[in-house]
């Protein structure tokens, strides 16, 4: 070779790629910083805290191993809070998937009426939890509320879900579904609009009825979105807090107290940060397990 500098050798190419990598790091650095400061460090800190005796007033009193977790098991309220939260997720997640899909199917056209209804159904999602619970406390007013009026029409008098051990949690579930049904509906609408019209035309020529088309064309085409909506809702609904706090305050008799409210009360009312952090880790583990389980189920369905 006449000019060795002009010809790229293997070593110089490697160095060039290495330099490029260093430069690329600059582009992801802002994101990495945010991830580190707002997510990874608090996560690590939370896990560390859950093994400590840390009181907001008394300060740090050293590590206590698994004591915080043992105390959670023996707690008079925590197991009930876990049960409430799991029941709440089991009620709301299928409702979000089923109702969201139903609304999306019903409103998936270019009519003006559907556009208005899509806006209406999404509209409540922009309200804050305070407004939503204010509205629904009026709806749930015993004797004078909308719910009591409607149930009175069919002869069910004296309905007061907020003070009923049986109906408090389902009542909060109804509020939650009403509040944020817009997101699953929008996700399903987006998925439905991705299905090529030609597929439906081919199905029409293949003599498929509406039900057959829904079962064999539409649902398989949006299977991934169904899984995504389910996982999103599982993760979101495990974090139930505001609605329960503002409608029932966790009552009656702790029958609607969710895990996050328990964490809030342990940490910021009773000031036992280590104990609250341990409850947070349990919630984290539950969410992770449920989301993984859902993903595993939908993968298995695909194969």
């Amino acid at each position, binding site marked *: 070779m006449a000019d060795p500098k002009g010809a790229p050798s293997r070593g110089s190419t490697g160095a060039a790629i290495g330099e490029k990598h260093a430069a690329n790091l600059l582009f992801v650095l802002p994101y990495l910083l945010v991830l580190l400061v707002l997510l990874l460090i608090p996560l690590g800190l939370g896990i560390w805290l859950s093994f400590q005796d840390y009181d907001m007033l008394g300060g740090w009193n050293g590590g206590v191993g698994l004591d915080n977790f043992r105390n959670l098991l023996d707690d008079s309220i925590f197991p009930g809070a876990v049960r409430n939260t799991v029941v709440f997720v089991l009620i709301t997640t299928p409702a979000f998937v089923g109702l969201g899909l139903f609304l999306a199917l019903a409103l998936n056209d270019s009519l003006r009426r559907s556009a208005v209804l899509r806006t209406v159904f999404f509209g409540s999602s922009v309200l804050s939890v305070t407004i939503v619970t204010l509205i629904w406390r009026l709806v749930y007013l015993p004797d004078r509320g909308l719910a009591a009026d409607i149930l009175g029409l069919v002869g069910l008098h004296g309905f007061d879900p907020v003070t009923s051990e049986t109906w408090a949690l389902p009542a909060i579930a109804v509020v939650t579904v009403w509040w944020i049904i817009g997101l699953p509906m929008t996700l399903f609408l987006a998925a439905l609009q991705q299905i*090529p019209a*030609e*597929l439906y*035309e*081919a*199905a*029409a*020529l*293949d*003599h*498929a*009825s509406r039900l*057959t088309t829904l079962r*064999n*064309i539409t649902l*398989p*085409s949006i*299977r991934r979105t169904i899984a995504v909506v389910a996982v999103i809702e599982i993760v979101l609904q495990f974090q139930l807090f505001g609605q329960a706090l503002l409608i029932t305050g966790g009552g009656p008799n702790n029958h609607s107290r969710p895990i996050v409210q328990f964490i809030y009360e342990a940490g910021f009312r009773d000031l036992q940060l280590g104990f609250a952090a341990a409850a947070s880790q349990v919630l984290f583990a539950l969410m992770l397990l449920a989301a993984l389980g859902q993903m595993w189920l939908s993968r298995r369905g695909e194969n």
Partner: protein
Amino acid sequence: MANLSLRQVSKRFGHVEVLRDLSLEIPAGEFAVFLGPSGCGKSTLLRIVAGLEAPTSGEVHLGAERIDTMSPGDRGVAMVFQHYALYPHMTVRQNMAFGLQNIGTPPEEITRKISEAAAMLEIAHLLDRKPGQLSGGQRQRVAIGRAIVKQPKAFLFDEPLSNLDAALRSRTRIELARLHQRMQTTMVFVTHDQVEAMTMATRIVVMNQGRIEQVGTPMEVYQQPDTRFVAGFVGTPAMNFLPVARVEERAGRAVACLPDGTEIATTVPVGHLPSGDLTLGIRAEHIVPGDGAEARVVVIERLGERTLIYADLRDGSTVVYDEPGDVRLDIGQPVRLAFDGAAVHLFGPDGMTLRG
């Protein structure tokens, strides 16, 4: 096998009239090709036959039945779509079986029909794959197979070759022509590609702006175009169109005089000529070097077996003509061109062909 009959079909989308009072008879067993530019209404017409669009007025009959009032599945037609429209989550076998299952065909009969069609189309080894695992050509065959198993009275093809590469397209063209010979079923094929129309059609239906311009065999449409539009749309290269400066009479026939002074004796009787500006049309193969108009070569397109020469006449209008593949010519070189008067077409101011 059934004849397809369109009777005064019109279609309007809002204020836009896509098809205007269109009537057409396609005899049983014919391979009819709807040919026309984008937006001429040919696909809409096919979709009306399939039942995917409803006509604004008019009737569609297939065999003895009126089908425009039936649902798509009841019409006895099968369609091959432009983008194949295979169900992505089903295997090839399930794709082909779906339509048969929906009408309650016994499983053993479905299996038999699928194996027959798969053998005919050489896709037996693909039956357990999903569409995503197939090449464009294979998907095309599956789409055709899905149509075949239904044993329809008529096949409808909506530009099914437009997504294939050039080599595969010409191969599929031949296969479709053979399939038609073997099945002898009525087939309606929509395309904007005049080569597809010329090579496959029993008859070509040339459409423009929602109307039928001409119906005829490929050679009829090529040699005796009814309108200037047909003359220009069918054939490669496109027919040369030259303005006629004035017309003279010789032995009762029109002699067209071009702006550059060239005189071309046509076979059109002079008595039939309308008033107004006429246009002369002549195909590249009917212009030969010889004693005639003076011209200058501007572009040379070598296609291998032949060469297309674009030359400017003295008045600046350009004509294209054929030369053998190995012709020796240069840009700017002067040539003299003779026009074959017997093969010339004259078009009236309304675009209609003038005939004797």
